[in-house]
Every structure is written in structure tokens, then in C-alpha cells.
């Protein structure tokens, strides 16, 4: 596996080596998240490790970061591209005091926080693809995958998993994904400090999570919609058993996507993949 050569344009920032946890901790200002940082050179999956920790009673706010994931793969066995020292593979344990029906709001909250963090590094707001992917120029820069354990009454824990392409030039990505992915270094022409990115991400997640619990979802939903690139545009929603064509109208208070078909009927979409109609 190819590891990129160091880029000296970032001055003293350590680039393309192992993540320096102390640099992440330095200046980290949060209420709950990032109190414990777990770092691995390689792990099966940060979400799987976080789940094991949570099942053993780990407290809220623990963050798991790995340089490489051996089981970062799709459901049909397609391997994820997971080179070390260039990207971010990150999971955090939450124990929200929210009813289970509101668990999906955490995914959208995380997407807003991630979009805020990315915007601060690339200088322009990225787009959120409902409900959980971050795109720039129609190409995937980051994603959120949420796992939870709950019963009918309460959420026991939630694992927010986040993957971001940071210092991984598109030109070095496998051909099969090159057309569909992008990275911060490709967008900005500069490697960034991964430590600064992680610190900022933890802080943005901490802030947005606190807002969700204390104020509710409404203001986060407005900010989510500000990042939503497809509002008012034609979309194709691919579901297991059919495809819907319509106009994206935004999200409702539960985070469901509202799509209006050509008859003027509005549908709540709670599962499916959404694409711009011109795709």
C-alpha cells in the first residue's frame, strides 16, 4: 500500500504519519465528547470496536480512531479503500436521552457537524446527500454510518461512525472509485493537519449534539436543509422494490425526506438512496 510522501507546505504540522493524539487533546474544548480517545493502527472496524465498548458499559463520549480497518467493507463483500495515515476513520459512543423514534435525528445532526467541520477546511459549504453523506461537486467526501441499540422505550447507546477523505489525492485512489470520490487535499491542493481536523470535528459534534438534546431538532433541521443541495430539484429515489421520481421538498421534523411526485402527492421517505434526476 502506498503511503504518500510528506508535504512540507504545512510548516510544522505532522503530515502522513500516525495521528498524534496529544495534538488532538491540546486545546480540545468539549463538554462530553472526546473525553476518552482510543487509537489503533489497525482494527476490524471502529464502529464494531465502539459497539463492543458500549456493550461493556463504556461511557458517552469515547472516541475510537483507526488508521486502517480490516473489515471496512460493503455488504456484498466489496472492500473499502482504507489506506493508513491519510484519511479519518472515526466512531464515537453516545448515550442520548432521546426516545428511540428520534434516533435518526442523530445521523442528520452528525451530518451537520461534519459539514461544518469540512466547510472550515475547504472554505465553502459542502452538500449533504440525504441523509448522511457529504458531497463536494457531486463527489463523495465523507459519510456517516449510525448504529444503535434500543428498545421500545429508550436508546441504550448510539455509535456514530464517520469516514472522511482527507490527505488522499483522488489521483491515487483506485480507478473504480476515482470518478465518484473526492478528498480535502484534492479540493484544496494542500494536505491538512489531521489532528486539527479531528479536534474540530469532535468539537462540532459536541456542540451540535448538545443543541439537539437541549433545544431540539428544529434549528439543526434548518441548517441541515441549508447544506441539502437538492431542495426544489428533481430527484430519483431508489428503494428496494421501486423507484420514485419527484421533487425534493426538504425534511420533516423526524428527518424523513419529503418528495413530491408529479401528481402533487407528497411522500415521506425513511429509507432509500436519493440521486439528482440528471444522474
Amino acid at each position: 500500500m502506498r503511503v504518500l510522501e510528506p508535504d512540507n507546505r504545512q510548516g510544522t504540522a505532522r503530515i502522513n504519519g500516525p495521528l498524534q493524539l496529544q495534538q488532538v487533546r491540546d486545546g480540545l474544548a468539549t463538554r462530553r465528547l472526546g473525553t476518552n480517545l482510543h487509537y489503533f493502527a489497525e482494527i476490524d472496524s471502529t464502529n464494531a470496536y465502539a459497539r463492543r465498548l458500549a456493550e461493556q458499559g463504556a461511557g458517552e463520549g469515547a472516541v475510537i480512531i483507526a488508521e486502517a480497518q480490516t473489515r471496512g467493507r460493503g455488504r456484498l463483500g466489496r472492500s473499502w479503500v482504507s489506506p493508513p495515515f491519510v484519511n479519518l476513520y472515526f466512531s464515537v459512543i453516545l448515550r442520548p436521552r432521546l426516545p428511540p423514534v428520534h434516533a435518526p435525528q442523530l445521523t442528520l445532526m452528525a451530518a451537520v457537524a461534519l459539514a461544518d467541520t469540512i466547510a472550515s477546511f475547504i472554505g465553502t459549504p459542502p452538500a449533504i446527500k440525504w441523509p448522511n453523506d457529504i458531497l463536494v461537486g457531486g463527489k463523495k467526501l465523507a459519510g456517516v454510518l449510525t448504529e444503535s441499540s434500543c428498545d421500545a422505550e429508550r436508546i441504550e447507546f448510539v455509535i456514530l461512525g464517520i469516514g472522511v477523505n482527507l490527505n488522499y489525492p483522488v489521483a491515487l485512489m483506485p480507478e473504480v472509485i476515482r470518478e465518484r470520490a473526492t478528498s480535502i487535499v484534492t479540493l484544496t491542493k494542500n494536505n491538512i493537519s489531521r489532528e486539527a481536523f479531528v479536534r474540530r470535528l469532535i468539537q462540532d459534534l459536541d456542540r451540535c449534539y448538545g443543541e439537539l438534546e437541549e433545544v431540539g431538532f428544529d434549528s439543526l433541521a434548518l441548517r441541515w436543509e441549508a447544506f441539502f443541495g437538492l431542495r426544489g430539484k428533481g430527484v430519483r429515489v431508489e428503494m428496494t422494490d421501486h423507484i420514485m421520481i419527484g421533487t425534493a421538498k426538504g425534511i420533516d421534523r423526524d428527518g424523513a425526506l419529503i418528495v413530491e411526485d408529479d401528481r402533487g402527492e407528497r411522500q415521506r421517505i425513511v429509507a432509500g438512496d436519493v440521486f439528482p434526476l440528471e444522474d
Partner: protein
Amino acid sequence: MELTEDDVLHILKLIDESKFDYFQLEVGELKITVSKGDPIPLASSPRSAPVSQSPGAAVVEAPKATPAAPAPQSAAPNIDAKAAAEGLLPITAPILGTFYVAPEPGAPPFVQVGAAITEDTTVGLIEVMKVFNSVRANVKGTVTQVVAQNGQFVEYGQTLFLVKP
């Protein structure tokens, strides 16, 4: 104007006998939509396959999974009555969403008929808005029936499994 149940049945009969494939009627707050062709997607029924169990999803779109079998619309309506009559305990859906019997396509199911389970056994996954929620048994015993099918959209409280305590 109010519509009685007989009125609605009469309307359905007229539509069924007509040449129209699609019919929509709004009377005040009451709204009736009838289709003889493709099913009309219900507000809570759209569903998709899960994409990944790993957050390392930043650079690759996962291929879509196909449910192992077509999803029936709902469990048999008398399943709960059957369970009660036979002394069986239901495991129900804690949230609405798409139900999966296995952690990923091709993997063995979490549990099968005859499996001994405890309260903490994970028996399935329900996905809604890319949140994958583990379904815990919350009962102890032996699985006697897998009621919901892989890929089926389930409602809150819908019976997924029956368990003999």
C-alpha cells in the same frame, strides 16, 4: 359531507369496475387514493437495503443489497392471537424500518427457528434513515417462528419472532 364505510366500499366497487387505474378523492380532511396498477407508496413504506456496517465509507458507495425474498406487506393478522393461545411470547419491532435477519447479505441469520435465546440476544436489525438498530430479544426461550421476512418494512410494535419461554 361525510362518508360512511358503505360509501367507501361502494366507491371501491365502482372504481374496480371502471376503466380507470387511479382515483383520488378529497372530501374535507378525508382523502382516498385508489390505484389498480402499481402499488401506491404509503407514507412509511419506502425502504432500501443497508449499505455498510463500517464507517469507512468515505470513498466507496456500497453496492445495493437485494433482500433474500420479496417482502410481504405484513405479518398474518392473527399472529398475536396465535401466540397468546399457544403461550408464546412475541419479539416486536422497537422502531419502524426495514428488517434484516442477518448482519449482511450472505451471512448467517442472527437466529433461526430452534435457537435458544436470552434477553440480550441480538435477533435482527432494523434500518431507518441509515441508522442500523440492533433488535434485542428481551425475552428468554426458544425461537419457534420467524414472522417477519428479510427486507420487510415493519411498523413499530409489529411482531418479528415468536418465542417459547
